[in-house]
C-alpha cells in the first residue's frame, strides 16, 4: 500500500528547504531545457521585454500544429 505520509513528508521537506532563488532557478532551468529540446522544424516568434529588474526573452513556437510557450531570463 502506498505510503501517503511519506510522500507528504518528502514534499513538505522539499518546499521548506526552498528559497525564492532556488525555486526560481529550478523553474527557469525547467523552461530553458524545454527551449533546448525544441525541434528544428519549429517556427519561432521571439519577443523581448524589459521589466523593472530583469530582461526576459519570451519565445513562443509551434510544432506539428501545437502551440508551445517558454520563457528564458
Amino acid at each position, binding site marked *: 500500500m502506498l505510503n*501517503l505520509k511519506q*510522500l507528504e513528508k518528502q514534499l513538505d521537506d522539499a518546499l521548506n528547504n526552498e528559497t525564492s532563488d532556488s525555486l526560481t532557478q529550478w*523553474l527557469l532551468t525547467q523552461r530553458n531545457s524545454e527551449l533546448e529540446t525544441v525541434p528544428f522544424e519549429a517556427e519561432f516568434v521571439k519577443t523581448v521585454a524589459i521589466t523593472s529588474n530583469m530582461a526576459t526573452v519570451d519565445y513562443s513556437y509551434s510544432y506539428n500544429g501545437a502551440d508551445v510557450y517558454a520563457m528564458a531570463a
Partner: protein
Amino acid sequence: MKRVMYHTQERRHVRLKTPIICMRSNAWLGYGYYFWYDEIDAIHWGHNSKKQTGYFEVYKADIECDNVLDTVFNEENYTFWKKQIEKAAQHIMQKTGIRTTLKEINQYFQERASWSDVADGILFQDLPNSEDLLVTDFNYRKRIQLVAYKLDIVSNFAFHDEWKCNKD
C-alpha cells in the same frame, strides 16, 4: 492489483521490447513511461500525436498498480493528490511569483520531493473529447493515463496492433 494498459508509439523498423520513456516538455505527469487505460484513447493518441512515420503501434502490458498513486479510483489518494498540488503551487507562487505548469508541478514532485523513490507511478484522468462517446455533450468516460516511474511494474509488454494515421 494488475491492470492491462496500452502504450502508443510511432511504427519503427523494429518492434519494441520495452516501452519508451516520455521526455516531452508537455507530458502531463513529468518524465516516465506512459500508458492508457482504454485502448480507444491509445488509438486516438496515435492518430493525433504519433504521426511522424505515418503509422503507429499500440502495445499492451500488465501494470502492477499496488504502489501507484491512484487519483482516479481511490478517493483517499485523490484528495491527497489535490491537497499536495494546491499546497505546492501556492508555495511556489508565493516564493517566486510564477504560476507553475502542469508538467513543472509534477516534475517538482518527482525531482525535488523524490516521489519516485516512494511511489511507482501516478494514475490520472481528464475527459476525452472523442467521437466514440455515444451520448451527445456527455463525457461519461474518463480518459485515464498512467505514468510509470519504474519499468519493473511493467510486465508482459507486447505488440498489440498497428494503424495508419488519419490524414489531417
